[in-house]
């Protein structure tokens, strides 16, 4: 049996990745098939763990503090209501079935992730899981990383008219928008409308919308 590690390597060892050494969280054992195991929240039990950035201001968040150090948002309170755009990342079964990438299985328990979009560049990619100033703003690394996403995959940029454009940054597996099966041309800006769906990797769909 092999498993997929948080950084997307196939590993025969099921405790730690036999490529990169990353901790693989025990989940439901799968008989003879590739399994994607666990979610971030189950891994992180120590106080110094890395958490999702603040949903209100996007400031990085660490420790068990209740209030955001950047904007004072109450993490236990209701989600923030902030005007602006956001990217909602989900595991998209329909997209996964359409692409049917061999050797990759669909994560059964992928939590929806939301990223507030900044005014400038919002890069989509996967960091190497190391302290990295250059980590993409929409960093899809993590225990359930989609192995089909490139390190620097694409970028969402806000134009002066307030709308966002999408550019593929020469990713390995390409970027698709909505129901069009043809990937967009690399390094070419594609304007997005509210609610457009951006498909990257084997099953990741990023819905870009006004909130």
């Amino acid at each position, binding site marked *: 049996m092999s498993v997929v590690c948080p950084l997307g390597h196939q590993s025969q060892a099921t405790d*730690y990745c*036999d*490529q990169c*050494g990353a901790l693989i969280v025990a989940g439901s054992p799968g008989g003879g098939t590739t399994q994607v195991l666990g979610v971030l929240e189950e891994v992180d039990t*120590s106080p*110094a763990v*890395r958490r999702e950035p603040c949903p209100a201001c996007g400031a990085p968040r660490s420790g068990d503090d209740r209030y955001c150090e950047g904007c004072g948002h109450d993490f236990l309170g209701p989600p923030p209501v902030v005007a602006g755009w956001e990217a909602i990342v989900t595991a998209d079964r329909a997209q996964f079935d359409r692409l049917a990438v061999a050797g990759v299985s669909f994560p059964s328990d992928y939590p929806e992730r939301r990223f507030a979009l900044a005014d400038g560049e919002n890069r989509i990619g996967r960091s*190497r899981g*190391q*302290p990295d100033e250059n980590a993409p703003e929409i960093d899809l690394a993590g225990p359930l990383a989609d192995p089909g996403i490139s390190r620097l995959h694409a970028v969402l940029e806000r134009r002066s008219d307030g709308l966002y454009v999408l550019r593929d940054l020469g990713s390995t597996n390409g970027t698709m928008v909505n129901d069009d099966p043809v990937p967009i041309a690399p390094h070419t800006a594609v304007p997005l409308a509210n609610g457009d769906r951006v498909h990257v990797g084997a099953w990741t769909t990023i819905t870009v919308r006004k909130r």
Partner: protein
Amino acid sequence: MSSFTTECYQNEYIQLGGSEVNAIVTVTSDGAAGQTTQPEAAEIVIIDTSGSMGAPSQKLAAAREATSIAIDCIRDGVAFGVIAGTEVARTVYPPYETLVTASSQTRSEAKRALRRLEPAGGTAIGSWLTLAGTLFATVPGRSCHAILLTDGENQTETDEQLDEVLTELEGRFQCDCRGVGTDWRVSELRRIASTLLGSVDIIAKPGDIAGDFRALMETAMGKATGNVSLRLWAPQGANIAFVRQVAPTIEDLTDRAVPVNDLTSDYPTATWGRESRDYHVCINVQPRDAGEEMLAGRISLVEGDETRAQALVKAIWTADEHLSTQINREVAHYTGQAELADCIQEGLEARKDGDLATATFKLGRAVQLAAESGNDGTMKLLQGVVEVDDPATGTIRLRRDVATVDEMSLDTRSTITVRVGPGAT
């Protein structure tokens, strides 16, 4: 089949940005003696019969007696033979170039053959080892072990010739080396023993050879495994700083790595009886974020293709310096023991070169380390070479007249370590 257990001692917490991971792994084999799966062994005793072995005359007589006792320890079914070495090597028993199976009859024949040994000629240790290799090659699949006894340095061949032989024979058999008297060279026998995964020791008095040979042969007969390797996996981007055995003696294995695949290497550890050894591994890995845990090393004991035990070396990055700055007691202890061995060897070297300042500094540090770690055996040997004024600060004076045997004993046994004592740091 003997079973192995491992214990891993480390501080897995690494400061942010830090990359060095240290761990001490204790490997214990229960020896499981007397079981039917015990590997078939082959034993060769190599005796120096050069001219110097006849002066004084009891030296060769003592070696003959000791070999005779060693032969008695060889159990039935083991393939064995005896080699006499001068500027050439020849078989003493059996009289042709092969090995025979031990039985009461062959053991008596071998002991009778020892009487014919006469001291004459030079010393070419490489040729002795080559013959041993040839004889062992006639019994493939056996776990091969030799005992080499010499009283002098390699004379009738060059260092390069010996090096070539060692490169050729590495991994083919294990060889324990013994130097009798004080006319042999510690560095030379250490190089041979180290390459051939054996021990090296000094036997000051010919009368002590017998007891030592008996112990060596009994240990060899107690080996319950074939060749075992320490297999080390390290993640992508990692770099193995060193792998060394640190108990019972210090033996650097870093350069012995035999690659298995891109991320895995085997380090030979030869055969195991009922015993326990400690290993220090130091791995540099790519730093990760706070809270992230990774496996920095997976250590397995591998016999053939079978994994017999495993230990995990972990790394967890943290901003909490209370956690990351604690040095694990075992790691600290063995780092000190390695420094102790280095200080002794460097101190003796400096003393030989007449650099008394360096010698005093190094041997003083050695005294301090030996005292701190409770390594009484080494401390006693150090006292044969230096006058200790204050062990806590390492204040010493070099002795003016040092017996060669004391100096060589200290050098030879400098790599013997002690385990972490209760309450030791």
